[in-house]
């Protein structure tokens, strides 16, 4: 048995593992994508039944009237705005809190405090915040919703950043500080680059959590509904298949975006080569 054999074996095994796991990952991905794909297909069915369209009867009818559904589009925009505001504020707070976690001695108090709002049922949190805002007569608006969503998203963002901070090594920070870096420089040049995937994930999570959140928003909503509130109302009171056209549009735009991002990455890699 030559010494090359085990290496070849392990690389073949590695290839098999890679192929198997790739198939598995794609399988799970397909599972997650069954509903959105189904919605995309339904959206091309001109009929009123939420069924798959027959190939001879495809139509973009629901897409063409999508933008005349003013309340839905307005709710969509409101959700995007609220989501972005939530993401920005929550991420900043989460970064600060996670830095404090790294440095502090009483970690469990900090951890428990930040994580606490996660355990509150959404309906109760929404109601309690509504009461809090009623006292100083704060008018409910997208900002009150944002406040509720910050509470909801902060534990998630905090933990996500902490998880990625586990890639951080105390020795790096020490080394930087020994070399005379200030706290801000340490953050900017050491911590931030290493943790940026975590910060990006946290921001994305915060956005998505806010974008999809219903119970808290329901109690804190002012004159403008968010998309989940609109959707719940639509499911209750009845709506046209334009909701599938909206989902379809989001999917198509997202895929185009991903395609573009990958192309850009390709181009950049090829240029660099």
């Amino acid at each position, binding site marked *: 048995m030559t010494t090359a054999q085990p290496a070849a074996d392990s690389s073949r095994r590695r290839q098999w593992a890679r192929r198997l796991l790739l198939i598995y990952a794609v399988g799970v991905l397909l599972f997650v994508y069954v509903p959105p794909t189904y919605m995309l297909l339904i959206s091309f069915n001109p*009929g009123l039944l939420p069924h798959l369209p027959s190939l001879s009867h495809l139509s973009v009818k629901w897409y063409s009237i999508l933008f005349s559904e003013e309340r839905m589009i307005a709710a969509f925009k409101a959700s995007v705005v609220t989501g972005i505001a939530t993401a920005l504020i929550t991420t900043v707070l989460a970064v600060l809190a996670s830095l404090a976690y790294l440095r502090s001695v009483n970690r469990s108090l900090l951890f428990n405090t930040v994580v606490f709002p996660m355990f509150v049922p959404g309906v109760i949190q929404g109601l309690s915040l509504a009461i809090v805002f*009623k006292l100083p007569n704060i008018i409910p608006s997208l900002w009150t919703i944002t406040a509720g969503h910050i509470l909801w998203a902060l534990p998630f963002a905090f933990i996500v950043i902490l998880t990625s901070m586990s890639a951080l090594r105390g020795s790096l920070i020490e080394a930087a500080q020994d070399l005379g870096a200030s706290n801000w420089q340490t953050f900017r040049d050491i911590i931030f680059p290493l943790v940026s995937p975590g910060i990006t994930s946290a921001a994305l999570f915060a956005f998505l959590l806010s974008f999809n959140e219903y119970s808290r928003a329901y*109690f804190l909503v002012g004159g403008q509904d968010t998309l989940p509130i609109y959707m719940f109302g639509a*499911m*209750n009171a*009845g709506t046209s298949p334009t909701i599938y056209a909206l989902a379809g549009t989001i999917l198509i735009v997202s895929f185009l975006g991903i395609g573009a991002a990958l192309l850009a990455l390709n181009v950049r890699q090829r240029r660099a080569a």
Partner: protein
Amino acid sequence: MDNLYDHPSNISRRQFLKLLGVGGLSLGLGGIELLRRPGFSAAQQKQTVQLTFWASGTMTIEQYWQKLEQQEGIKVNFTDNGNDPGPVISKLIFGNAQQLYDVGGLQGGAEKELAVRGQLEPWDESKIPNYKTLWPWARDIPYIRYQGKLYGIPTVINADSVIYLPEKVGKVDTYAVVFDPKLKGKTAMEDAWINSAIFTAIYLKENNLQKIGNPGNLTKDELGAVMEFLIKKKKDGQFRTFWNGWEQGVQLVTSQEVWAMTGWEPIVYAARRAGVKADYAVPKEGYEGWSNDLLLFKGAGQRGRKDAAHRFANWELGGYYGNALGKLRGYMVPTDNNVTYAKAHPQEWPMQEQKDLADHVKSKFFSMKGAIYWQNVRPDNFQLYEEWWQKLRNA
């Protein structure tokens, strides 16, 4: 003599004069407001007023609200309130709904509770001339009044029974079909004790299976009997599922997940539009009636919008609203004005359709059974209803 002018420490003369000026200005503006009351110049009356309408989704007429703006100068800002009394009442009391909304629309029964909690103002019938045109039995619905005052104006009315697929179950004229063991796993009811308890009670009462007084307001013992029956049926696997909201209801019928279920009539229309043969039962036990009532929030009074609200209510009973509602959803305003209006404006609305719809709804209320059992979102024992429903959930 104490005179503000003699005490520079309190308030300076200039400030005081300013106050007077501001006060005078606001009095003057208020005076203009007073001038805008009915009885004065129509032109002054019809400046556009904003009215926020927080109501169940069945009460909006979408693009047809424009007519209201043209005719009365009222711009309606509609928001769907989910038609769920709990959250609506919570938001009124705990939340800021009173600051946001002027007029409400909710399924009937909660008027007493809202009035007791001081959330509503009574309607002034003298300012709603069309109120007299409401069909008598609509005006006689017990829960719209409290202590003699009118709190809810029934603007949307219908009576519910059973939706069924005739090709699967034949012709249905009784609620028994929903509880038929031969249809196990093929029936459904609504996930709301408000509806389902009263349907079951009507079935049990009229088929002499239980002694029940008013199915819409069950006593403790009656409720127990009704719910035990329903729980047993659930345990036996009678129901495919319970449905929650329009889209779920329609989907159950159009995907043939169920062959018969209690539900709202427009679901039948929606199923037919989608190409599915569905019918609505004319039950020998009688229908279950409900109304969506207009409510006047206290907040409207504080914002000086009471008059606009009354004009709005009057307009809704005037005919155009009823026609639009009929066209959009197949629901009715319980008045003959719809037909009269359609007759007078044939280019806007098809009169025959309106007449047919009106006759159809009227016939339900004077159907074989004769009486109608009114659905009430707040029966006397409503806490107990909820507790029993929880037991059903656990079964």
